[in-house]
């Protein structure tokens, strides 16, 4: 999987969404975006379809992505959790 956020040249520029060309995919830190569009936001449930397309589903696919990743690239810091 190739993600555009895999930059090695230091700091990503700020990504304004209130500028002239605010939504250009180039420069948008996609992994940060995925953190947000998958893991955050108000959950307004109450519909059959939403119950299906709700957080569990999205979590499942995110886990699928992440676990396929971590199986290939084991963390060197097995003991380190979130601070």
């Amino acid at each position: 999987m190739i993600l555009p956020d895999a930059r090695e040249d230091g700091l990503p520029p700020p990504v304004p969404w209130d500028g002239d060309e605010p939504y250009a995919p180039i420069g948008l830190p996609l992994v940060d975006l995925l953190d947000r569009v998958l893991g955050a936001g108000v959950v307004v449930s109450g519909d059959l379809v939403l119950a299906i397309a709700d957080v569990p589903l999205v979590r499942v696919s995110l886990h699928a992505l992440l676990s396929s990743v971590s199986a290939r690239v084991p963390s060197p810091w097995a003991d380190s959790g979130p601070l």
Partner: protein
Amino acid sequence: MSSSDTGTVTYLFALCAGRPPDGALAAVAGHSGGGPLRTLAAGAVHLVVQDVPAADFGERALTDRLNRPEELRRCALAHHRGVAAAAPCGPVVPLPMATVYLSDGNAVSAVASREEAVLAVFRRLDGRTEWAVKVHAAAPEAAAGAAGSGSAGTGGPGTAVPGGRGYLSRASARQRMRRDRHETARAVARTVDLTLRRYAVDATAHRPQSEHLTGRRAPQLLNAAYLVDDARRAEFTAALDRLRADGRLREVEITSSGPWIPYSFARLGEQVPAAATTAAAGAAGTGAP
């Protein structure tokens, strides 16, 4: 306009306090294969929605699509465009990607039943944006070069004790050094977090991203989001700059992006219950012995 006979469902991007102009929304490309973005109203809350093909947004189809990185990327960007389209018109509350309703009516009633809670989130997010800050340990080779130049080569001129014993002591020294460096880096990450929290209304942590996702060879120590008042934005970014320039924080690399629409702080009724619980506990406490 969504209905099962046209084969479309209602995709909900965001809720907003002000009604975005139709023209502005129509100019935004939502999900591919869907109709133009439009708004619905649920009381004082406006919904930014799009008719999308039911076949692409069913359970099976979504699971399949979101597990393909390129589709996931397209979907996430389309979602973000829809959310961002509403941002210029006052506070906006994003919904998680893939929030889909069978019909407009279902979407409206789902939101209407939570109108008060949504309005409370508007008030909380108004005039505030989110900033993403990640802290990584410095790249291993750079850190090793700085810390142990000269004794890095095995069997080089720096080796005092020859043989197996020498090897073992060098190995344990290396391990100790690495452990110390990690400890220091984690402490520095905590310092960064505490410093930035002083300029933020709220802060939250996302799960640290794997090295594969970040494309770096150093572990991620902090993946945080800060909710910052627009009035304090300059202070916040200045604090970030100072942290980056601080020579004592060389063990880590700080990256940031923003301003973001406050995705990470759009939660229904979380701050309210916290206050309510305290108040209730206090009230109950007066009656207790």
